[in-house]
């Protein structure tokens, strides 16, 4: 069976059994060209996908999924989901009423191009990386694209699908100057091949790493911090679960019960907008088929909303913001799409540490407690000038305190794409703890 047939087969079966069911189906096409020393090191071409079901029977919810679309595999999936539902004790589970939204193509011809041209992009990208004599090794230089078809359908009337895609250039490489050795790891994503400029991206990547060569130790102390967009974006995404209505509902967010309170500096306005036309994580509706719309989470420092889905909205007695997230392999959650911190008036670092990137986010942030302690990379700033790069340090603090201590925002918004798209300007923070020499 194909995904469409499989979807209908499962929904029919559910109706016949008197079970409410919701399908999330996904079909992904991947193309990746990896260049090495001027030749094509690895080429990946594939299509894959699967289908996941959420069933509700007697107010109890169960999940299952399959990538095998045979009748027996689909039957297995359905029966497992119903059995899984029977493990719940409650009776409050439900599926939201849905509507037929049709198919929306967010991609159009924006990633159209011959495989040869895409391979050439990877080769040109890698060649430009190596042009810098300080680049001693290129471990990986990829052109990669993923085109995703997502379908949501339910026995409650939801029936919708969309297609979107993104293309990226990514690289891991080593640069050396004297005895100083630094590894760069960068990615740049676009939603339209017209915006792709491999040579320029390669130069930006090497410049980002080259400025860290010759780094000196940083003395332990408390200094003003200037987070570049990439570094701040990593923090923001890691702590975005503090705005998750599900975390609020489960007692795992420190923002619970604080709607309407000032939680951040007045300069902070935080928005999630799935409808951004060029948004790398744009989607016309969420994983329950709820139409997407922009949502302001923090406005001028005041907490204004949590991200919700139908289940969380009902449990918390607030509106459904259309942020249901469920991959076919997953269970119902909430998640941001294109999340960004609104830029400010612009700022010029005076004294402190410019944090160009942080590493170790999965182990060094705790979204329940709000605390972070991360390996940092950056530069020491003195009298308004970059004095020298610094290394071998950690930066630590509490994310909500950091938001209160923001003293300035850069004027331009830059985006990163890590599943969700995250945008931020340069962010100045009054003081953070830096551990080093």
């Amino acid at each position, binding site marked *: 069976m194909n995904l469409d047939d499989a979807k209908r087969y499962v929904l029919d079966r559910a109706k016949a059994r008197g079970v409410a069911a919701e399908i999330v189906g996904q079909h992904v096409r991947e193309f990746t060209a990896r260049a090495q020393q001027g030749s094509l090191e690895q080429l990946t071409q594939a299509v*894959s996908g699967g289908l996941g079901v959420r069933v509700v029977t007697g107010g109890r919810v169960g999940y299952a999924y*399959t990538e095998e679309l045979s009748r027996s595999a689909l039957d297995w999936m359905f029966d497992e989901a119903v059995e*899984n539902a029977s*493990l719940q004790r409650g009776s409050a589970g439900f599926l939201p009423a849905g509507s037929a939204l049709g198919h929306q193509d967010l991609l159009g011809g924006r990633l159209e191009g011959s495989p040869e041209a895409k391979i050439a992009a990877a080769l040109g990208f890698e060649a430009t990386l190596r042009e810098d004599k300080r680049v001693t090794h290129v471990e990986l230089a990829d052109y990669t694209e993923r085109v995703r078809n997502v379908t949501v359908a339910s026995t409650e009337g939801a029936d919708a699908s969309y297609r979107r895609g993104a293309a990226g250039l990514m690289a891991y490489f080593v640069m050396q100057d004297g005895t100083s050795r630094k590894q760069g790891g960068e990615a740049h994503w676009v939603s339209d091949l017209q915006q792709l400029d491999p040579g320029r991206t390669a130069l930006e990547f090497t410049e980002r790493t080259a400025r860290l060569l010759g780094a000196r130790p940083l003395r332990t102390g408390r200094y003003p911090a200037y987070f570049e967009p990439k570094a701040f974006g990593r923090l923001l995404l890691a702590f975005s679960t503090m705005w998750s209505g599900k975390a609020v509902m489960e007692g795992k967010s420190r923002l619970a019960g604080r709607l309407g309170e000032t939680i951040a500096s007045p300069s902070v306005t935080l928005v999630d907008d799935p409808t951004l036309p060029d948004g790398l994580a744009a989607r016309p509706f969420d994983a329950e088929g709820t139409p997407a719309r922009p949502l302001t989470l923090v406005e001028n420092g005041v907490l204004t909303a949590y991200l919700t889905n139908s289940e969380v909205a009902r449990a918390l007695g607030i509106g459904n913001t259309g942020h249901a997230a469920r991959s076919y392999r997953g269970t119902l959650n909430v998640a941001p799409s294109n999340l960004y911190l609104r830029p400010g008036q612009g700022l010029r670092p005076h004294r402190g540490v410019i944090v160009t990137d942080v590493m170790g986010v999965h*182990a060094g942030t705790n979204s329940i407690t*709000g605390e972070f302690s991360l390996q940092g990379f950056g530069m020491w700033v003195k009298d308004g000038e970059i004095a020298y790069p610094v290394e071998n340090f950690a930066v630590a603090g509490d994310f909500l305190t950091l938001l209160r201590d923001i003293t300035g925002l850069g004027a331009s918004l830059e985006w990163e794409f890590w599943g969700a798209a995250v945008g931020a300007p340069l962010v100045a923070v009054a003081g953070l703890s830096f551990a*080093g020499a």
Partner: protein
Amino acid sequence: MMLSESLVAETLSRASGADFAELYVERWKRRSLRLLNGEVKEASSGLEYGAGLRLFHGTEVTYGYTNDLTPSGLHDLAAHLVTARGREGRVDARGRGGLDFRKTVSGGLHAPAVPFDAHPKRYRVERLLEADGAARVAPEIRQVEPSLLEWEQETLVANTQGVWAEDRRVRTRLSVIAVAADGPQMQTGVASRGMSVGLELLDRYSPASLGRRAGEQAMTNLRARAAPAGTMPVVLGNGFGGVIFHEALGHLLETTSVAKKVSVLSDMLGEDVASPVVTYIDDGTTPHGWGSSEFDDEGAPTERTVLIEKGILKSYMVDRLGALLTGYGPTGSGRRQDYTLAPTSRMRNTYIAASATPVDRLFEGIEFGLYAKEFRGGQVKPGSGEYNFGVQEAYIIRRGRREEAVRGAMLVGKGPETIKRVAAVADDLDMGVGMCGSLSGSIPVEVGQPHVLVSEIVVGGETG
């Protein structure tokens, strides 16, 4: 068997012109169960099913995958890859005589004692409830979240050199998260165990014991003050403390980064790379180890590889492509998350060997330092050796004594420097489990060590 021999042989033979072709087929049942405060929040079951085809032209790789394992699906996959490469290989290693598979199947070294169907799902819920009760060690414990993962993965690897290896990998993992709160303060405790076993995991590590540990740790962290900031001596706890060497050392010894000489430890076999108290072993054969399997994801038997012996570099971790590129013999280290990713050289169960030194000896003479007892994950840049890992439970050491608790902090350093600064290794080897992410995705690994003293590491706490 997931696919017939004739279909496998036909798919491989369609990869005409390649020097080498390999088909990886996988059928993976995954079940997960999460409870929160005594209620089942999510129960899910999944079937992942697909095949990955990899072609070598010299050392250039073409990779593709599909969920369509019908003859036409596999034929399309092979045809697309051959067209994509768009040229003939240099040598046809298969000759013209067709394929003669040497069939090997797993011998059950890691087979579960308790099969999935031995207990109803309800039994699992009842057992997880034991963790909930045990975690509530104080009124401040507000949330208890036990979860159980059960995996049953069948794999087949067949290639044009006649390899046909079938493996069955059953893995079970139990985790408990506890959240303690006091006013606006919130802290967490975690405990987790996983093995290549069935539900007997719950007999080896009772949910109650993990729940209690998670609850106690959450309370310790709730009462702890911020960790200090700066460079100091650190005693690393045994078990999951081995994550430091996984990051600071292990990743630098994978041919994935050694072959391109990206790793700062490339071309150093036989050289003195670590403190002489360090012997480092990667063992894919540990019975029922979380990172064990009988065959790797390239169909090669796994083995026990001594990487470093008394500070001297003895071996890298070598996959098929790494062997082609470097000339080092393969070590059964080719691993991948699933069929969507080509394998690369990866760690399995990796640990620092024990010495005869009693643990208490490590603390003697430390005027001021950190005892990092329990850990979270870490990360490394192999090209510069810069690494980090997170601490989940820690205590101040003063004048050789373990004193007050401090909240977790990240430890950072440069791997090659840190492994020279290992001052002592104790006698109490233990292992911990985790998921390791790299080029070929997220895979189960064990990390381990006895207690270890490192003379200085940057502790990323907060300055007073």
